[in-house]
């Protein structure tokens, strides 16, 4: 495999947007192309990460987005792995460039769901589960994570206040992220008093339905040279891991871990030749507060059952030993499904270049992203290094 670099990564603001997926994707793509100081004509192929474009009565996003970028002849396909669509698209682009098929690719993740009412949106999200046996049997998407949270509480004694501490931290981090969905500081009490949606999870344990897009230009070393750039000060994809798990949560042995995340994490660390202590910060898939704790345990940053305590003690805040979700995470930066995994790369790119403002992680050089589809049917983990 050849080395693959992130040449640029940029995003729209996350939140409620009047724009369509197509327009959001074009905005993010334009920013990434201009940041990279390339021409759209340099893009040889593209992957679009998206889950719910049919809710806007539009499939086949690829050609529409390429046409809007003035390159209708460029092949572009949608990659759908529910909420892990972004990491899956990054992974596929990494494979294509690494294998020498292409030298320059655009990965753009996008979602537009704010036109749906809450019940419809909740139903759409439950389509990411094994719908026949879970969604159609009464489980909402928060309900599936509620069941995971109940298992974590039962097995490890995790408390609802500890879950709330994840939300409090991530809301605090998002305060200085101009592109975040929420700019609202919250307290443990605010979380505890918010309405229960799927016990033990409350409204403030959950990420929002967000609109938004994020885009990245990935390229080979040859392409970097062609553009007259040195490979120094560039972001290298040092490790990539991708694994699957049963689409159905109920079939699993242990409901306090996502095996796909364990496997994808191991693959990425092995490829990178690095261990957990080498990671300066991580952007993980905190679709619900409990998911951040499970992620830290699955990736080996915390021993089983210990992540809640570490969060409470400040280990994962900005300035702590391992800052987790300095962007605000899905919880507060927002979760435009298809865009989320690409948006994690945007945060990594900004942080590694020292451009994250008040939420800057000091001396960040190596970062990890962890992006999960539904309840762990898909997971992608990437490790990035500023070379």
């Amino acid at each position, binding site marked *: 495999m050849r080395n693959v670099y992130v040449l640029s990564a940029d995003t729209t603001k996350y939140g409620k947007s009047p724009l369509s997926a197509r327009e959001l994707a074009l905005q993010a793509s334009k920013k990434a192309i201009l940041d990279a100081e390339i021409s759209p004509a340099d893009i040889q192929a593209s992957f679009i990460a998206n889950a719910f474009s049919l809710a806007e009565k539009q499939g086949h996003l690829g050609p529409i987005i390429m046409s809007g970028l003035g390159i209708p002849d460029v092949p572009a396909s949608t990659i759908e792995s529910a909420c892990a669509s972004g990491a899956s698209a990054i992974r596929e682009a990494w494979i294509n460039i690494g294998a020498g098929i292409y030298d320059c690719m655009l990965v753009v993740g996008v979602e537009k769901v704010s036109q749906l009412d809450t019940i419809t949106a*909740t139903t759409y999200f439950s389509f990411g589960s094994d719908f026949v046996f879970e969604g159609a*049997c009464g489980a909402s998407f928060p309900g599936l994570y509620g069941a995971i949270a109940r298992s974590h509480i039962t097995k490890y004694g995790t408390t609802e206040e500890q879950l709330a501490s994840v939300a409090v931290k991530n809301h605090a981090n998002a305060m200085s992220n101009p592109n975040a969905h929420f700019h609202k500081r919250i307290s443990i009490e605010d979380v505890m008093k918010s309405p229960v949606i799927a016990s033990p999870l409350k409204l403030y344990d959950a990420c929002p339905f967000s609109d938004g897009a994020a885009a990245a230009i990935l390229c080979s070393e040859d392409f970097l040279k062609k553009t007259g750039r040195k490979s120094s000060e560039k972001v290298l994809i040092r490790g990539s891991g991708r694994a699957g798990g049963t689409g159905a949560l109920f*079939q699993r042995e242990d409901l306090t871990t996502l095996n796909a995340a364990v496997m994808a994490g191991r693959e990425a660390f092995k490829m990178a030749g690095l261990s957990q202590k080498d990671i300066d910060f991580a952007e993980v898939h905190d679709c619900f507060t409990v998911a951040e704790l499970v992620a830290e345990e699955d990736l080996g940053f915390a021993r089983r059952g210990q992540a809640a305590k570490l969060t409470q003690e400040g280990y994962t805040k900005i300035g702590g030993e391992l800052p987790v979700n300095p962007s605000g995470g899905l919880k507060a930066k927002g979760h435009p499904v298809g865009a989320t995994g690409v948006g994690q790369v945007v945060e990594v790119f900004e942080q590694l270049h020292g451009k994250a403002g008040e939420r800057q992680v000091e001396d960040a050089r190596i970062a990890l992203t962890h992006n999960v589809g539904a309840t762990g049917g898909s997971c992608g983990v990437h490790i990035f290094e500023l070379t």
Partner: protein
Amino acid sequence: MTELTQDASELTIKEFQEGIHEGKIEGYRCTNCGHQQIDIMEFCPVCHSAKLEKVEFSHFGSVVTYTIQLVAPEQFMNEVPYAWAIIQLDDGPKITGWIPFISRPEDLPIGQRVVFKKSYLPGIVFEKGKTGD
């Protein structure tokens, strides 16, 4: 070429759902290794044998984990609050189901005995078992 025909040993989604409304819980057992699973499947995930047989499972089980749904998918909007649970059946695999009228965690301890109930309500309905179930 392998011919694909549906035989008596195969379970369709429609048959599974009709079975539930008729009071049957159906799924698969691998005739090679004995693994049991409620699913729509062609190969065993443990030994990868294609020799699966359709079997009927017990109606009794215990709650492994659950959530109480206060915001629910469309089909269940009028049923809130209820518990959606993962249930370990006594003679085999895990299954999902929902238990009506559960509104507080105190009402459903982990390990609670439950029994499958034939019903025309959507999904797979369970109710709390009596002592001795």
